[in-house]
C-alpha cells in the first residue's frame, strides 16, 4: 500500500476516452509537495489530456483525484483555480487586445461597489508586483498584442502565479522563450519549489528536464510507463520509454553536398529587419540558419520566397538573377517553404489529408478544371505510405492528426512539387522524438537527391546534427558562419547573443 498522504496530488486509475480514441487508460500520476515533476511522452501519449483533467477542463470517465489526501472533483477551470491549481497552456492563451494586467487577473479582477466595478488601480498595482517578482520589465497597462511573444509567455507565468497556486502545470512554457528568458523562468521555478509549490512540467526538450526536474513520469499511448527520479535515468532511457523502441542515430548524415551553387543571395536588406545578407547554397547541401527568436531568420526566408518585399539586394537561382514577387513565382522557380506556423499558415486544418497533400498539384491532375479525384487519392496514398503518416484513411481531417503527422502532411505537399530548393522553418517544432527522427532522415535523403535545403531552427543540437554549414543571424545581420566540423553550441550562442562577426 502506498502512503497516499505523502502526495499533494494523486490521480488514481484515470481513464478518459474521446469518440474513437482512448486518450488515457488506467493512468496513475502522483506528485509530491515542492517538487518539479516532469511529464514526458510523444504527442498523443496523453500528457495534455491528463493535465486538462487536473485543470478542470476535462473530467475523467473513471478514476479518482486526491488533493492533499482528500478526494476532490475538479469540475471547471474556475474550480481548479480555487483549489490552487494553475495552468500555463502550450498555445499562448492571452487576449490580444487586453492589457497585460487585465490578462493576468482575467476572471479574478479586484472589484469595488457592488462587486461589478473593477478597481483598476489595485489591479495594476498587483500586476506590477507580480511582474516584478518575475523580473519582467513590462508596463502592465500595455496591450498584450504590443509585446513580444517571449514576454507574453512570461505574462502567462505571472498569470499562473497570481492565483497563489499550490500546483502549477506548465505545458511547454519554454517553446517560445529565449535562452536568457528560460534561465529566468528556471530561477523562478526553483524559488517556487523552495516555497513548497509543486510544478508539473511538460517539455519535449529533454535537456531542460534533466536540468530542472526532480522526478519524471513517462506516458505512451495513453498508458503510464514509468515514474522515476530523474537522477536514475539517462536521456536514452527516457527516449526509449517514450518511443517504445530503439531509435538508432537521431541525426543521420550520409550525404555530402555537391559543388554547384543553386541559390545565392547578395546584399539583401529590408528596413530594420534584414541588413546586407549574403550567402549561397549548394546542390545537396543542408544550410542551417541559427539565431535567437526575432533575429530575422523567418523574415529572410519570407523575403526569398516572395512573401514580403525587400528594399534592396539580388537573388540568383542556378546562376541566373531572378526577381520573385509572390509565393506563386517562387514555387514556379523551384522553391519550397515549410512555414514555422503549420496551423495558421501551412495546413487547411478542416480539410482532409488528401486535399492538403494534393492542393498544390491540382492543375496537373485536372482536365478542363475538373481534378481526377481517383488519381489524387492514389498520389496521397503514396505519400502517406512513403512518409509513414499515421492516419486511418486519406479522408481524415488534418486537425485530427498529431502534430508530427500534420507536419509530415505539410512536407508531403511540398515534395509533391519537386522543389530544387526547400526552406524548412522550424520543421520539428512541437513534434515528438519519433517523428523528428523521421524528418531528419527525410532531410538527409532529400539532400542525397540533390535538393538544397535551408534549415531554420532554434534547437541547437538539431541544427548542429544535420547541417553541412551553419550561418548565425543576429538582429538581421549575419554574425557568423561555421562548417559542420568546426561548429559548437558555444560558438553559435556567442554569435547569436553577443554579436561580433566571427570569421571562420
Amino acid at each position, binding site marked *: 500500500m502506498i502512503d497516499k498522504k505523502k502526495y499533494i496530488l494523486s490521480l488514481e486509475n484515470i481513464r478518459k476516452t474521446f469518440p474513437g480514441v482512448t486518450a488515457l487508460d488506467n493512468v496513475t500520476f502522483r506528485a509530491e509537495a515542492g517538487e518539479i515533476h516532469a511529464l514526458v511522452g510523444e504527442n498523443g501519449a496523453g500528457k495534455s489530456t491528463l493535465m486538462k483533467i487536473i*485543470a478542470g*477542463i476535462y473530467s475523467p470517465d473513471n478514476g479518482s483525484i486526491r488533493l492533499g489526501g482528500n478526494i476532490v472533483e475538479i469540475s*471547471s*477551470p*474556475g474550480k481548479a*483555480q480555487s483549489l490552487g491549481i494553475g*495552468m500555463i*497552456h502550450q498555445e499562448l*492563451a*492571452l*487576449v*490580444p*487586445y*487586453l492589457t497585460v494586467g*487585465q490578462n493576468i487577473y*482575467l*476572471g*479574478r*479582477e479586484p*472589484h469595488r461597489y457592488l*462587486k*461589478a*466595478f*473593477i478597481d*483598476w488601480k489595485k489591479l495594476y498595482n498587483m500586476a506590477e508586483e507580480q511582474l516584478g517578482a518575475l523580473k519582467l520589465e513590462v508596463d502592465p497597462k500595455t496591450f498584450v*498584442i504590443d509585446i513580444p511573444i517571449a514576454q507574453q509567455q512570461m505574462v502567462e507565468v505571472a498569470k499562473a502565479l497570481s492565483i497563489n497556486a499550490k500546483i502549477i502545470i506548465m505545458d511547454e512554457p519554454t517553446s517560445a522563450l529565449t535562452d536568457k528568458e528560460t534561465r529566468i523562468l528556471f530561477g523562478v521555478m526553483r524559488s517556487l519549489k523552495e516555497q513548497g509549490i509543486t510544478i508539473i512540467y511538460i517539455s519535449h526538450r529533454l535537456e531542460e528536464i534533466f536540468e530542472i526536474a526532480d522526478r519524471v513520469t513517462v506516458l505512451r499511448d495513453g498508458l503510464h510507463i514509468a515514474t522515476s527520479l530523474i537522477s536514475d535515468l539517462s536521456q536514452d532511457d527516457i527516449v526509449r520509454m517514450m518511443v517504445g523502441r530503439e531509435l538508432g542515430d537521431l541525426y543521420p548524415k550520409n550525404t555530402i553536398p555537391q559543388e554547384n551553387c543553386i541559390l545565392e543571395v547578395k546584399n539583401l536588406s529590408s528596413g530594420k529587419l534584414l541588413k546586407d545578407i549574403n550567402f549561397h547554397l549548394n546542390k545537396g547541401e543542408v544550410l542551417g540558419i541559427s539565431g535567437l527568436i526575432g533575429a530575422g531568420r523567418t523574415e529572410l526566408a519570407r523575403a526569398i520566397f516572395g512573401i514580403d518585399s525587400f528594399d534592396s539586394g539580388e537573388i540568383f537561382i542556378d546562376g541566373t538573377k531572378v526577381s520573385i514577387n509572390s509565393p506563386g513565382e517562387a514555387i514556379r522557380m523551384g522553391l519550397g517553404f515549410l512555414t514555422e506556423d503549420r496551423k495558421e499558415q501551412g495546413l487547411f486544418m478542416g480539410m482532409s489529408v488528401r486535399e492538403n497533400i494534393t492542393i498544390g498539384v491540382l492543375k496537373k491532375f485536372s482536365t478542363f478544371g475538373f481534378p481526377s479525384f481517383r488519381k489524387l487519392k492514389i498520389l496521397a496514398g503514396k505519400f502517406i505510405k512513403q512518409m509513414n503518416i499515421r492516419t486511418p484513411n486519406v479522408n481524415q481531417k488534418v486537425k485530427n492528426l498529431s502534430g508530427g503527422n500534420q507536419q509530415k502532411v505539410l512536407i508531403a505537399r511540398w515534395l509533391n512539387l519537386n522543389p530544387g530548393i526547400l526552406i524548412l522553418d522550424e520543421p520539428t517544432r512541437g513534434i515528438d522524438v519519433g517523428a523528428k527522427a523521421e524528418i531528419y532522415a527525410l532531410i538527409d535523403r532529400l539532400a542525397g537527391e540533390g535538393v538544397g535545403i535551408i534549415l531554420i531552427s532554434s534547437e541547437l543540437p538539431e541544427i548542429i546534427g544535420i547541417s553541412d554549414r551553419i550561418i548565425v543571424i543576429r538582429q538581421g545581420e549575419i554574425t557568423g558562419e561555421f562548417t559542420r566540423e568546426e561548429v559548437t553550441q558555444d560558438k553559435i550562442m556567442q554569435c547569436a547573443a553577443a554579436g561580433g562577426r566571427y570569421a571562420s
Partner: protein
Amino acid sequence: MHLKEADLKDFLRKYSVAMILLIMIIALSLFSWRFLRPSNLINISLQTSIVAIVAIGMTFTILTGGIDLSVGSVVALSGALASGFIVRNGFPLYSAITLALLIGVGIGMLNGLLIVKGNIPPFVATLAVMAIARGLTLVYTQGRPISGMGDDFVYWGSGKIGLLPVPVLILIIVLILSYIVLRHTQFGLYVYAIGGNEETARLAGINNDRSKISVYMISSFTASLAGILLTARLWSAQPNAGVGLELEAIAATVLGGTSLMGGYGGTGGTVAGAFIMGVLANGLNLLEISAYSQRVIKGVIFILAVMFDIYTKKEKKKG
C-alpha cells in the same frame, strides 16, 4: 522628433475616426455656410441619434465577435408595441414603454439563447429572429401604421430639454452608460476578453454564456429604445420602420474602429462613426447633390474612411 512622430501615430490610432469626422466637418463647412449653424448641428445630432443608439448596442455584440441582424426589426416591433399598448389598450405611457422595452429585451434573450444554447452562429440566429420580429410587427399592426399616441409620447421624439432634443440627450446617456459598463465593470472586460480569445476567457473561469446572452439583450434593449424614439419622432409606428437599419448600425460600428472579429473597439468610436454617416448625408443634401449620386459618394467615402482607419492602425503595429 522621432518620439513626436510615434506619439502622433498613437494619437491617430486612437482617434482616427474622430479625425475623419473633423475633416469632413471642416470640408463641408467650407462649401456651405449653413452647415455649421447651431440649428443644423442640432438637426444632425437628432437625425443621427437613432442609428447611434442602435449602433451602441450592436457594438457590444460585435465586440464579442458576434453580430445582431435583428435590430432593425426590433426597432419596428418595439415602436409598434409601445404605440399599440397606448392606442389600442389604453395603457399609461410609461407602462406601455416599459412593457415594449421588456419584450424587446426578451427578443435579445432569445437571440442569446439560440446562439449560446442552440449553438447557432450569431449571423444565422439573428437573421432568423430578424424575420420573426418583422413578421410579428406585421401581424400586430396588420401592415398598417399606428398613430394617435398623444403629446406626452411624442415628446420623447420631438421634445427638447434646453437646446437638446430628447433623443440626443438619451443618446448621450446611453453612450456614457455604455462607456462605464465597457471600461469599468467586470462584464465589460469579459466582453472584450470573449471577443479577443473565447477559449482563454472560458479557461479563466468566466461564464461566457451569461456574458454572450447579456450582449444580445443589451443590443435588443438599445434597438427597442431607438424604436420607441423613432416612433415618437414620426408620431406614428411604421410596420416597415428600421428596414436596413442593421446595416447602418454595423457600418457605424466598423467605421468607429471596432473589429468585426471582436475584441477591439468601443462605443465612442461607434457614435463617431454614426455621426460620420449623418454628417455626410446632411452635407450632401445641403450641397444639393442628386439623390442618385449620393449613394455612390456614400459608398466611396465609407471605403476611404475604413481604409484610413486600417492604415493608421497598421502604422502603429509596424513601428
